[in-house]
Structure formats: structure tokens, C-alpha cells
């Protein structure tokens, strides 16, 4: 630690260049992580808020609630911990406001999802012409009492309440009644729901043409969800590897330059353990300093960022990323260690 700190303080330019690079890389990784999490949550926020373990869909719907329709016969009578959901993709329009794509979710007021919904302002819908909208619609100028049309149809709906964290398929959710959903679907009388969700992990309808999926499996199949997550994971993984290589290259060069000095210390009886510790400490200190810088930038970004940017900041997740970068620093610092251990004191004697 002593040697590492002294060297960093003496070689200010060098050290700050490395730190600056790690600041930028860690900032980029933090931002990508937050963006990945934010987008993932915009897919799943609504489902997550229901705390369900099972989703039952039409067996031929390709695990996609948008394609799934269940008939009255298929659904039958439901236990208390199960609820029907009717999904419809809608374009929301109101006079003087920009059009918004949203996911309409019809609920039964008597079932647990509707009962458990938390309302941030206003109230829950009680009539087919009322909807509860995600908070994000406020950013687009919609207010309590705003009158909207869906998909350009003649029927008017009123926003009677707002709720938070209601997102599905990266679109805000409008919660309404099942009869409103049936109207949106063209009023086919035999259709009861798009899906049945249940809090029990073992729930199934058991009727023909229906299939139960775990919520996790259902989420993985959300359109674009896993592809998007994999893209981010790939980018973050690559950035980790890039940071590893950068750290390793820098540490290697810095250490190579010091080998004659280390050889002298070996002549003087300094154990190689001390020199290895100095190398690793230097690498870790530089990465840690970079992480601090990256975190400061991230906090500034989080404060300055407009609410529409879909970023979510999870301290545990970002800490894990930070620990990952520190691990890269450790591995990067280990690469020149072999040379440090092998340094031959005889090389600096005589000449």
C-alpha cells in the first residue's frame, strides 16, 4: 500500500490518465446497467406489482398475452388467488395532447389485482368508461379528468386515477374494466380474458387449449425482452473485458518499467510478497478511484436526467458491477505479478 500510494502520488499524470479512463468506462457501464434495468422494468413493472407466480394463456398464443384469448368455458370459476386480465394494445389520444401508445389491461374489480392496485391520485375505475393510468401519462400532459379515446374509436374514457410503476412492453398501462376490454376487442361475447394470473406457483386451469407458465418464463417471452437484455449483457460484458485489458496493459507497462527497481529491492532482501502487494494495491487503488469518479458522474446524471429516460438505479446491482470492475482490476494487476515474482536481483548488479 505504501509503495502504491507513493507511486500514484508521484506519477500524477500517469495515474490520472488511468483513473480518467476507468471513470469513463465505469460510468458507461453504470449507465448501461441502469438503462438495461430501466428498460427491463418497463417490460415487467405491471406484472411485478401483481406478485403473481403463474400466468395461464391460450396454448396456441406463443406465450404472448397479446395473442392470447380465453373463452368463458376455458376460464370457468377461479379461486381467490387467481384473476383474469384482458390485454389490448391501444393508442391513447386526447384533444391537444400528443398520442401515446399504451397497454390497456382490463381487470375485474372483485379480484385481487384490482383490489391491490395502489392509487397515487384519484381513484380506481368503477365504470366501463373509466381508466386508471400510469403516472408517466402525466408527463405527456394528461390529468385527472382528462377525456381520452382509444385506437380512434368513438367511445370516450375518463382518467379517474393514476398509479405508479404500471408498465408493460415498454408502454404505460391503462387499467380499466373487463367490459371496457370486451368492447375494445369488438364485443365478442364468448371471450372472458387474455390471461389468468395466479399467486400460486402450481395453479392451472386444466381446461383444453390453456397452458400455465411460470411468471419468470412468461417474462422471458415478452416481446423483445430477452433479446434486449442479452444485448445489454453483451455490451456490459464486453466493457468489462475491455476494462480488464486496459488495466492489464497499463499495469504491465508500469510494472515492466519498475522491474530494475524491484530487482534492487530484491538485492536488499525485500521479499517479493511486498512487491506483489504493491502491484495489486496500485491496480486496485486506481480502479477504486475510477469507480468513485464514475459514481459521482452517475449521481449527477441521475439528478439531471429527465424523467422520460427509462433508467433505473439499483444500488445492489450497481455495487455488483463495481465489484466486478474491482475484480477486473485485481486480475489486471495479477498479470504482471509473474514477472515481479521472477525478477532476478543479479540483473542489476555489476554492469
Amino acid at each position, binding site marked *: 500500500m505504501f509503495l502504491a500510494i507513493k507511486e500514484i502520488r*508521484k506519477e500524477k499524470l500517469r495515474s490520472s490518465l488511468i483513473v480518467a479512463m476507468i471513470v469513463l468506462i465505469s460510468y458507461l457501464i453504470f449507465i448501461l446497467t441502469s438503462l438495461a434495468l430501466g428498460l427491463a422494468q418497463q417490460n415487467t413493472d405491471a406484472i411485478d406489482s401483481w406478485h403473481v407466480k403463474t400466468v395461464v394463456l391460450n396454448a396456441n398464443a406463443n406465450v404472448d398475452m397479446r395473442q392470447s384469448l380465453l373463452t368463458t368455458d376455458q376460464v370457468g370459476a377461479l379461486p381467490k388467488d387467481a384473476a383474469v386480465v384482458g390485454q389490448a394494445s391501444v393508442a391513447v389520444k386526447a384533444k391537444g395532447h400528443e398520442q401515446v401508445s399504451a397497454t390497456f389491461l382490463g381487470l375485474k374489480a372483485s379480484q385481487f389485482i384490482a383490489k391491490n392496485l395502489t392509487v397515487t391520485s384519484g381513484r380506481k375505475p368503477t365504470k366501463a368508461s373509466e381508466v386508471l393510468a400510469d403516472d408517466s401519462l402525466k408527463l405527456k400532459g394528461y390529468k385527472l379528468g382528462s377525456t381520452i379515446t382509444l385506437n380512434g374509436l368513438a367511445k370516450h374514457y375518463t382518467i379517474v386515477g393514476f398509479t405508479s410503476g404500471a408498465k408493460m412492453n415498454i408502454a404505460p398501462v391503462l387499467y380499466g374494466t373487463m367490459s371496457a376490454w370486451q368492447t375494445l376487442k369488438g364485443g365478442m361475447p364468448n371471450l372472458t380474458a387474455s390471461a389468468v394470473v395466479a399467486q400460486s406457483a402450481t395453479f392451472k386451469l386444466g381446461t383444453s387449449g390453456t397452458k400455465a407458465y411460470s411468471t419468470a418464463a412468461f417474462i422471458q417471452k415478452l416481446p423483445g425482452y430477452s433479446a434486449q437484455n442479452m444485448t445489454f449483457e453483451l455490451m456490459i460484458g464486453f466493457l468489462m473485458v475491455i476494462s480488464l485489458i486496459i488495466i492489464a496493459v497499463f499495469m504491465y507497462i508500469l510494472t515492466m518499467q519498475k522491474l530494475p527497481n524491484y530487482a534492487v529491492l530484491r538485492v536488499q*532482501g525485500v521479499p517479493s510478497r511486498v512487491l506483489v502487494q504493491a502491484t495489486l494495491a496500485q491496480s486496485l487503488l486506481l480502479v477504486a478511484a475510477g469507480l468513485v469518479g464514475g459514481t459521482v458522474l452517475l449521481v449527477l446524471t441521475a439528478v439531471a436526467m429527465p424523467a422520460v429516460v427509462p433508467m433505473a438505479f439499483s444500488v445492489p446491482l450497481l455495487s455488483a458491477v463495481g465489484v466486478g470492475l474491482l475484480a477486473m482490476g485485481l486480475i489486471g494487476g495479477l498479470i504482471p505479478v509473474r514477472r515481479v515474482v521472477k525478477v532476478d536481483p543479479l540483473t542489476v548488479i555489476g554492469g
Partner: protein
Amino acid sequence: MPALAVEQVNQIFGQGTARVQVLHDVNFAAEAGQLTLIVGPSGSGKTTLLTIAGGLLTPTSGQVQVAGESYQQRSPKEKEQLRLNQIGFVLQAYHLLPYLTVADQFKLVDRIRPQGNLAPAALTQLLTELGIAELLNKFPNELSGGQQQRVAIARALYPDPEIVLADEPTAALDRPRVQVVGQMLHDLAHNRKKAIVVVTHDERLLGFADAVYKMEDGRLTQTK
């Protein structure tokens, strides 16, 4: 009993046609309180002898004894301890750590070897003796060659070793400086009761030595 004794040492490098015998039946002893000089032309085997005496190289045959104890059969770790505790090295190129101030060069020793180093007052006295007491906050690149070398000497003496081995300490110095360094090494040996061994091709140091050996083609003879 001499502080350092080398007995019947032979050193052979290489094999077959590349085989060279660098040292032939070398014997010498360095006493505490004396400056011992080993002079000889370049390539005669002086540095090789010094590395053997310092426990950095195990000779092909023969013995090295420090304070009457043979170190030949000891482990690398024990030889490392020997160099850390009992032998100070002054190398040809001074090789101070470039990112440590003069004061920190000594602090580094404290960290590795928390006990047995010179007390602060004794260090100040040594630095004053060597004329470098004002340089404590300087980095090596802010010092002249002669100043760096004196710091290296102080660094070698700081753990208070019984033996100091110096390889060509005057290689880069002009005549007046050589006289100063010669006198300094002589005084350090006498005042501090150290066995100081200097290997050099610089005959200008001869006048300061208590004992002198000549190295010629790997054979060592005492001349004083």
C-alpha cells in the same frame, strides 16, 4: 572471527564449450571496522565474487560465512533475511526508487523491517555525516549523481548491518568526489565498526583501504 569470510570458492558458468571458470579457489575475509578493497580490471570476476558473498549466487564450490555461520545450505528465504538484516548493498547504479523521497526510502525499510533500524537521531547523524541531511524531501531525480550515491550508502547502512558490500561505488564520480567517497567509506567502517567491502577497478581508492586484494582472471591475492 571475520565478519565475512569466503573460502575456496570456485564459480563456473556454462557447460561444454561455453564453460568458463570465473573464480578460482578464492579466499578472503573482511573484518569489522575495516574497509576492504578488491581491485581488478573489468571482467576479472569482482562482481561475481560480490554476488556470491552477498548470498545472491550460490558458488559452484566453496563456502561463504557470515559471522562464522555458513550460508551455503540455507534456503532462498533465509538468504533474503540475511540480505535484509545483515548485509547492506551499494550498487553501481544507485537505483533509488524514483517515486520515493529520500525520507521515504528509509520509511520503506521501516515498513519491511520494523525493528533494528537506526533510531531517528542516529539516522540524522548519519545523514549529516554524509552531508545529505537537507535532502530528505527530495526525489532521486532532483539529486545529483553524488548525492544519490550518498543516499544509497545511507540506505545500505540504515538497517545497521554488520557488512556493507559496494560494487564500483565511484564509477561515475570525478577525482575530488572519489576522494570524498573513499574517506567516507573509510570513516564509516572505522566509526561504526562495519565490515565494508568495496569491489572496484578504481585504483584511486587504494589509499583509503585497510586491506587490499587484487583480482586477476578470477584469482584473488591479498596485497595489503
